[in-house]
């Protein structure tokens, strides 16, 4: 009896949470796929007709926004890798006793709502605002200069909002490096640059990949930054989905676009999980 109880224990513990994830994460993916193949409208209801046209329309009508989103996501990720590595490196190797303080400072923005932070950037960057106005007065910028509404503003916002998600996994990977490995390299007369290139960087790569996953996916599907900091020439695919779903109530179309986006991103996630495992992302998430 006791034995049966013990073998059942993990299942009983997992059951409520597992059911929740099944019902509200896995099942919705199915309803989304189903809706993406339906026809109809809110008033008359939807019928499943295996309507592939939604996908054809999604790809032909919104190809520009889809490609733009992937490009923005990619640029954001590359900028983030370059920006984050020195920070993670410095905290991991020179942070000393204050390591956790520095990590805490990097996480500080999370105490303020994502939307509010992005709007605050708009306030800073606005055409005659606190940043551009003095520079224009001083004659350093031409009066017509503006940042808001450009792709620079949108990518800047994305970089700002996702930086901690890149620093943390790289930090975790660097922190894990056994100092004896580095000493061994030095004993073998490797100069610092060689130690970095041959030992430190390769060992940090899993962290970099985890960071890429944790930033590329949310950045390319974001719609807050492009809505707040961008203009009609920077529209991202997330804005299209939001408008189709919430303004037009065109759920089949919104689902078809989302599914296409997810297929592209999930392909990436699956390849990642297969090649590198799920450990690094989960570890960074646990922090």
């Amino acid at each position, binding site marked *: 009896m006791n034995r049966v109880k*013990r073998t059942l*224990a*993990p*299942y009983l*513990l997992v059951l409520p*949470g597992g059911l929740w*994830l*099944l019902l*509200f*994460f896995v099942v919705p993916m199915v*309803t*989304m796929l189903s*809706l993406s193949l339906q026809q109809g409208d809110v008033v008359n209801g939807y019928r499943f007709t295996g309507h592939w046209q939604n996908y054809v329309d999604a790809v032909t009508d919104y190809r520009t926004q889809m490609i733009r989103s992937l490009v923005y996501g990619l640029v954001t990720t590359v900028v983030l890798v370059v*920006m984050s590595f*020195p*920070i993670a*490196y*410095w*905290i991991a*190797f*020179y942070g000393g006793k204050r390591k*956790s303080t*520095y990590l*805490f*400072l*990097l996480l*500080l923005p999370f*105490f*303020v*709502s*994502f*939307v*509010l*932070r992005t709007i*605050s*950037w708009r*306030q*800073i960057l606005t055409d005659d*605002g*606190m940043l551009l106005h003095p520079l224009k007065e001083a004659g350093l910028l031409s009066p017509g200069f503006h940042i808001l509404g450009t792709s620079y503003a949108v990518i800047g916002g994305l970089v*700002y909002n996702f930086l*901690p998600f890149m620093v943390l996994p790289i930090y975790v990977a660097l922190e894990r490096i056994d*100092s004896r490995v*580095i*000493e061994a390299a030095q004993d073998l007369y490797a100069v*610092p640059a060689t130690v970095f290139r041959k030992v430190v960087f390769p060992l940090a790569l899993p962290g970099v990949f985890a960071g890429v996953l*944790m930033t590329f*996916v949310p950045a390319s*599907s974001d*719609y*807050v930054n492009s809505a707040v900091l961008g203009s009609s020439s920077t529209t991202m695919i997330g804005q299209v989905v*939001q408008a189709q*779903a919430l303004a037009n109530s065109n*759920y089949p179309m919104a*689902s078809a676009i989302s599914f296409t*986006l997810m297929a592209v*991103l999930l392909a990436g996630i699956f390849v990642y999980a297969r090649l590198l495992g799920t450990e690094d*992302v989960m570890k960074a*998430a*646990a922090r």
Partner: protein
Amino acid sequence: MTKTRRFRFGGEQVMFAYTWLIILWLVAPILIMIAFGFNNPHGRYNQTWQGFTFKWYSQVFEISDLTSALVTSLVIAVVSSVISGALGTGIGYALGRWRFRGSSTLNFIMFTTISSPELIMGISLLTLFVTLGAGLGATTITIAHVMFSVSFVATVVRARVVTLDRSIEEAASDLGAGPWTTFWKITFPIIMPAVMSGVLLAFVLSIDDFVVTNFTAGTTVTFPLWIWGATRVGLPPQVNVMGTLIFAAGLLIAVIANLRSRAKAKRD
């Protein structure tokens, strides 16, 4: 340097300055937000500095729909963090303690929820609720928040359970405690800090969430949704004040939690 040889790549000062520059850049918009809670704008736009005032702090709850949006956010955050705390602890404990049939599938689903774009989670939940004909509101928002928080709580709790010293539990059962007693008297107090930080994380994720909430809210308005809706007409300084208060509260809780765990580490 007489200490043990350390790996030096050089440029230490440069990296130090750079790290601080980035930290400054990260907090800049927060400082602006805090500062403009003390601004005294004449028109509707709280964009340029026009004098110092405390009045928004005394009138912070003057805008009734903003206040009720904040209350809605707080209620949803409390309810969803408690539920996801309970569900996530169950999963985290089981995954940390045993390997069982389906554990790798569960692990993979958790990994996918953590790395899935919020946009997809939001729109897919919306299609589920539309298909079921469920009315959107505080309940559907809470369901959604629990869904994306559970995996985070489970991950945090599992990390603690894995490092648990099993011999303590064995000692308890050797002394005649049943599995139930052992769990509540021995195991739970040990994993409690992890559970608490999981719940706090879930709370923060919930109160800050915009994207998933946007899709599952219907006509219900939370704090981030209210801000979103008001951006076009200009944000009132009350939003800055509320943002500042939430920031200060979060900071305070984090610092207290940190000091307590440090004091505990010293005692141990």
